[in-house]
């Protein structure tokens, strides 16, 4: 039993190590994941801070912190998607087939990519958080709230990775990239990105009400500000999505196995 567990762990770690080596030795893979969140942080916090003067906008830590809540969510989700690109590339160019041959339990391959996505996003968070603090972000939450914030973001990262993995494993081509990226991008932007949910208007307000990422984004902002948050509900929704998308990724792996 321990031998099987050891083999599983060894396979997952080996796959993660290989993927991370590829990412951290190739600037073309590493830099976009770092640049995009910084770009959105600068563009939104810099260009739209006047929006915080509108009637009904109340967020004590300030607009940079308000936008950081979104940027953290976006960086976490896109970090997972970028790792999904690696899965598609590996299965397109034959590496995936070799991994299928070399592993006894194929879910270890998915776990390997989950570990890759986590390490990648940790680096992105470090850079984005330091830049946001240097840019004047105020944090009202204590250590427990910040730990809960990053744990929630880690869940989002894994959710996005599993979604992208399900697509990458079914289609096994880099041409599936837009199918991984565009839905995530759309769901991210149909949330209260620029203003609190109460100030949203039109169809976005209606869709944002039922978008689970709205709940996660609101919780991110409440944790950053040190405001009481609906933690149990948010984690419940996030873990539910995680379970659903884990099943999506595992069935995707079966599809890849069936294709040989």
């Amino acid at each position, binding site marked *: 039993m321990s031998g099987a567990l050891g083999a599983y762990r060894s396979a997952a770690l080996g796959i993660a190590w290989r993927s991370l080596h590829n990412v951290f030795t190739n600037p*073309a893979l590493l830099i*976009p994941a770092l*640049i*995009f969140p910084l*770009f959105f942080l*600068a*563009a939104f*916090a*810099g*260009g*739209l*801070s*006047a*929006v915080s*003067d*509108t*009637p*009904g*906008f109340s967020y004590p830590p300030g607009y940079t912190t308000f936008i950081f809540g979104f940027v953290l969510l976006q960086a976490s989700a896109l970090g997972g998607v970028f790792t999904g690109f690696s899965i598609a590339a590996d299965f397109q160019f034959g590496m995936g087939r070799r991994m299928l041959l070399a592993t006894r339990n194929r879910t270890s391959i998915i776990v390997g990519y989950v570990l890759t996505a986590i390490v990648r996003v940790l680096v992105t968070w470090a850079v984005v958080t330091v830049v946001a603090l240097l840019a004047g972000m105020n944090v009202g939450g204590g250590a427990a709230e910040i730990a809960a914030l990053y744990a929630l973001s880690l869940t989002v990262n894994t959710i996005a990775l599993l979604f992208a993995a399900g697509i990458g494993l079914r289609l096994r081509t880099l041409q599936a990239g*837009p199918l991984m990226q565009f839905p995530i991008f*759309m769901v991210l*932007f*149909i949330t*209260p*990105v*620029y*203003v609190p949910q109460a*100030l*949203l*208007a*039109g*169809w*976005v*307000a209606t869709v944002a009400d039922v978008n689970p990422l709205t709940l996660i984004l609101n919780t991110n902002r409440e944790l950053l500000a040190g405001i009481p948050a609906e933690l149990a509900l948010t984690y419940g929704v996030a873990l539910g999505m995680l379970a659903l998308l884990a099943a999506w990724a595992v069935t995707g792996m079966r599809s890849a196995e069936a294709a040989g």
Partner: protein
Amino acid sequence: MSAAAATLGRSPLPTQVGSLAGRSVLRTLRQPAMIVPSIAFPLFLLAVNSAGLEAATNIPGFPTDSYLTFILAFPFIQGALFATMNSGQALAEDIENGFFNRLALTPMRGSALIAGQLGGLVAIGLIQATVYLSVGLIAGGELAAGVLGVPVLFALSILIAIGFGGIGMFMAIRSGSGETVQGTFPLLFVLLFFSSISLPRNLIAEDWFRTVATINPVSYLIEGIRSLFVSGWDGEALALAFGIALALIVLSISVASHSLRNRLVRT
């Protein structure tokens, strides 16, 4: 030698341009993957931003009470940026698959190649502008300049698309790689977001951002298009926008032509 290349070999410049423009237009229209994202993506962001930032119209001094009307310039400029990628991608494919080398063996002039490629760009630019304007007005946006503003809006948006398209062609000719052209796209996106696209420059609160938006020429392109929707006929905004668009065309086509001469020599 292909039929098109054979025709080019014994024809005057307008015929050469016509042949290559026809090919460029047909190739663009036959590839939904080139047209659909460049229309759908700007419309998606238009829909999201117009609803998400409607509260911004409550900022004192905001020039209109409809954020949709204010942000309608966004898809026109974003569509022009897509033109950069489309024109560059098409030319890079010609270089990568050897069509460009075959053309170089004919007496085709470099100017015909550039003008022909721009034909496809104008076609897609017209489709984009028609869709953006129609959707914007149906959704409740206003065109303060009225019906006479439509041809001015189309002319300006096509000039902007040609200007950015020239940059895409330059990148394609210089690199000969579609991947490089694709990689340039996010950099141009930065110009769009660090501009007065979301708020008027006088309402941008952060000094550093207002300074960047003021020196960013894309702000003036946006403000020219926006003036037709928001204020009607603003001579200064339109003159600046047309001037910058024409300067962009001269600059980008000049560098593209120069690179083309170098590539033809190498070929």
